């Protein structure tokens, strides 16, 4: 269905990624955001709070992140699309309830504007080190979806997509952005409502006394009902049967957790979005996501000027991971170069999917800044020269690391 014109602030704006995401949430039909302010994500919550009342939506500043995510799960069960907005330390606090949300197959969106960690880290500066946390942060087996936009326009567009995916697959969807994109200001075009496709909540329509909140349809996804509308809703984090009643036995645990992972895994082809460029005859492929893909552009240009055949694979969807596409490319290319603002997270996934068929070069960055384009160029150039297969992931030193560790530049300002 199309977006409601009341929710869409159609126009041309010059805004940052955070603000664009707040506008995107409202356009997607989000009626409830709960959050606790944290740099560098606060502008997204402020933007939503500013525009929400006119559209009959609500923002609540909760007492902390634990309360925020719990309120979001509750709001979703009350029948409205909901979201929370946070960054590193707040994200860590939310982990338990993310698992609760996944267990209860609750559609909601979490915007994480990543900053450098661990702990308080560098609040005003960037990082991409929560990628594995977004996949494995809560205990137990579950799958969820994570997206990684690389511009303010994409933060608008993919916030809408995140809501659509959350409703379609009844699961939490993470927008794993970063401070650079969140605080980057560019032109953002918000189209008219009738050009925005949104996925409505799939409500159960049968007789009330027959409703089974966890009975899946053929696509493995159960229909929802609104809490308070008179349906029997038994909602518990305990492993449950189709009625939602606790059923702590091996059979139920297997059937239930298998479905939690299968509803995403079996739909991977429909969920995953990649942006590919110049892959046809590439000998080296740069695999990147978020701000690192914008930075990689320059390194790739530099390599092409030297006659190196280098392609680009951008992970717009990071989870579920595009195992098959990477395995397929690994048979054809010499090496993958993976720049990321952490000390190796997605690079190891790329290695796993390469099955030893291509070399994998990690270009790490500790955070608080982005790579120098030379770092990526140097890695591409190295990857092309490297003969034979090297086991494991090869870590490339960056320009900054050489300055810090070899030339011993002054660290405190």
């Amino acid at each position, binding site marked *: 269905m199309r977006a409601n014109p009341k929710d869409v602030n159609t126009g*041309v704006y*010059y805004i940052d990624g955070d603000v664009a995401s707040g506008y995107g949430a409202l356009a997607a039909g989000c009626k409830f955001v709960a959050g606790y302010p944290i740099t560098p994500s606060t502008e997204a919550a402020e933007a939503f709070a500013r525009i929400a009342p006119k559209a009959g939506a609500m923002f609540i500043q909760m007492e902390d992140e634990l309360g925020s995510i719990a309120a979001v799960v509750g709001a979703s069960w009350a029948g409205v699309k909901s979201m929370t907005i946070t960054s590193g330390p707040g994200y860590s606090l939310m982990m338990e309830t993310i698992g609760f949300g996944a267990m209860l197959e609750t559609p909601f969106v979490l915007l994480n504007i990543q900053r450098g960690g661990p702990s308080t880290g560098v609040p005003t500066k960037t990082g991409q080190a929560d990628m594995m946390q977004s996949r494995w942060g809560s205990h137990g087996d579950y799958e969820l979806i994570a997206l990684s936009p690389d511009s303010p326009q994409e933060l608008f567009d993919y916030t809408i997509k995140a809501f659509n995916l959350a409703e379609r697959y009844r699961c939490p969807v993470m927008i794993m952005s970063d401070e650079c994109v969140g605080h980057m200001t560019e032109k953002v075009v918000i189209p008219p409502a009738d050009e925005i496709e949104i996925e409505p909540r799939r409500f159960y329509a049968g007789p009330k006394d027959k409703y089974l909140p966890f009975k899946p349809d053929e696509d493995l996804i159960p229909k929802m009902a609104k809490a308070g509308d008179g349906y029997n809703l038994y909602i518990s984090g305990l492993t449950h049967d189709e009625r939602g009643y606790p059923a702590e036995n091996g059979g139920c645990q297997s059937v239930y957790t298998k479905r939690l992972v299968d509803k995403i895994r079996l739909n991977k082809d429909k969920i995953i979005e990649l942006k590919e460029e110049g892959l046809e005859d590439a000998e080296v492929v740069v695999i990147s996501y978020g701000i690192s893909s914008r*930075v990689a552009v320059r390194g790739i240009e530099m390599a092409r000027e030297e006659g190196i055949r280098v392609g680009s694979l951008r992970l717009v969807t990071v989870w579920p991971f595009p195992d098959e596409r990477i395995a397929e490319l690994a048979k054809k290319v010499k090496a993958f170069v993976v720049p990321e603002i952490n000390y190796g997270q997605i690079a190891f996934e790329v290695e796993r999917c390469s099955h030893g068929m291509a070399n994998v070069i990690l270009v790490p960055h500790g955070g608080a800044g982005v790579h120098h384009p030379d770092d990526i160029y140097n890695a591409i150039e190295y990857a092309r020269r490297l003969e034979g297969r090297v086991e494991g992931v090869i870590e490339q030193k960056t320009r900054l690391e050489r300055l810090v560790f070899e030339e011993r530049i002054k660290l405190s300002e």
Partner: protein
Amino acid sequence: MGVKMAEIRFAGYGGQGIIRSGIIVGKAAAIYDNKFATMNQSFGPEARGGACSSQLVLSESKVLYPYVTVSDVLVAMSQAGYEKFEPELSEEGLLLIDEDLVKPKPPRGRIKVFSIPATRFAEELGNRIIANVVMLGFFTAVTKLVSKEGMEKAVADSVPKRFVKLNLEAFNRGYHYKR
């Protein structure tokens, strides 16, 4: 790669409107002049007084790589900002300074220096908070990278309504300053 027009750096203290300056020029270029502009900001945990900078890439086509590598224009509103970002300025670059706040060393290469007492003018107009807008007027006249009309519109819709007149006055004070 896009057709690059200019890479611009604004530097100063938190509270001087350094990031706002980047937004206003970016908005004039991207919204009113129909170009492409990517603005990035850098600031510390302090709300006021800490080192602060913004960078703007202007282009005739979509900006892919979003950061300044060699700046064509450096606008310095503090000595610390000048010292930090002067080495990044191109040998043919333009250096714009608030002459009461920045004492530059003799310029390298063919760098051209343009000075204005922006903060002093702002104080004369009644509020030092608009020093950045005086500087933006000066910037517009010196660099000609963005149109005066576009800038006036961008200034006007970046400030509360009751301050539009004062800000446009500040902008024109800088724009018409004899250099």
